[in-house]
């Protein structure tokens, strides 16, 4: 599974760093590094909806506050 987080200016201001770190944390804790590839990208052109994240190409709007919820609802179910 590929998770890509935007690290452009706009998403950076909206907390991309925190989103990346929380995801890195979750992946490490649950030993998912062989199943999930986390990477960064520049502007996805949807800055209004930042922090922009894609999971296998599907777009999601994530904030530092709802990373956990996003992980449980959008990432974990797809791992099975």
């Amino acid at each position, binding site marked *: 599974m590929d998770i890509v*987080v*935007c*690290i*452009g*200016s*706009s998403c*950076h*201001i909206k907390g*991309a*760093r925190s989103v*990346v*770190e929380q995801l*890195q944390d979750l992946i490490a804790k649950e030993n998912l590094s062989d199943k999930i590839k*986390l*990477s*960064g*990208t*520049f*502007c996805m*052109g*949807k*800055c*209004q909806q930042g922090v922009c994240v894609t999971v296998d190409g599907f777009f999601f709007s994530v904030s530092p506050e709802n990373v956990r919820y996003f992980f449980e609802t959008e990432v974990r179910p797809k791992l099975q």
Partner: protein
Amino acid sequence: MNDLCCDIGFKSINHAGEQLCGDHVDIVEQEDGNTVIVLADGLGSGVKASILSTLTSKIISTMLAAGLSLEECVETIAATLPVCSVRGVAYSTFTIIRLIQNHTAEIIQYDNPHVIVIRNGENWEYSKSEMSIGGKKIYRSVIRLQQDDVFIAMSDGCPHAGLGTCYNFGWQREDITTFMEAMSLCGYTAKTLSTLLIDECDRLYGGEPGDDATACVVRIRKRIPMNMLFGPPANRDDVDRMMSLFFSKEGKHIICGGTTASVAARWLNKPLRASLDFEAGDVPPIAYLEGVDLVTEGVITVNKVLEYARDYVHENRLYDTWSNQKDGASLISHLLFEEATDINFYVGRAVNPAHQNPDLPINFNIKMNLVQELSAALAQMGKRIKVSHF
């Protein structure tokens, strides 16, 4: 013309308890490519010394730059300087370094510690001819420049550092020379070298300088061009023209801005790989693109670079921060402040619709101002700047 250029930097510390520095450095660049640098040390310290040294350096640099003779400069100073009521003399010592077309340096010294010249990492003794102008003993030398030559002009506050506390006779000229010989080989800029010397003086003074101390360093170096792309062009049809101009230029290439980097990656037909390493808290990670030396995020990174640039031309307190960190802004700072001598900016005027949101501190005007202010700060560092808009 050869491909040498002069990197000039200076730093001062004030006599403990004084708000003004009694030393003054004035640099005048002439249109014909000659540069006149004057370091003057006014009698005493504080306001009086500051006025004396400012007048002296301004008068000499302006008159010499206008092509008047040294005799006339010295006579003018003697006739103009206010006479000290305590000591009954009008007095300011000075050192003049005149750089002629980047191939010759003329050094004229009056009562300041003699200029140290370091060539190939070693002290280089040069000949001085003595002359007398208006009863003042003045030494003149002419030196043919070589790459990596380092000239160090000082006020007497430097060799007096540590006098009576660390050393019986202060920080001797020979010891300063040894200290700087080692530093001269590290590739430090003139500003950094002068900062290292003055910081050491401050340390020897125990943080309470007994005199104003100033070091002005001139480093002869090769011209190094650098190119920086910032923002996509306003008109999509100009991408091809902008990219071919940018990539055809000699020197390293820096791209700032996510969208800009994506446009460049498409033009080069190479993948853009963003890293997720957050090095310094407030600057976004960098990215990698084959054929480009450095790819960073745009506005936030460049804003940080501007902060470093402003500090560098004044206090130079943040040097340790950006010279050690590996984030985008620190890497750009290293390339622009230390490596480059000639910087070409390619600035795209495209408006990013996503940034025109009142909640975001990154609108279009801010971006244009950033470039303007950054080029001003870089010009102050003595860089040659060219800005092209697209």
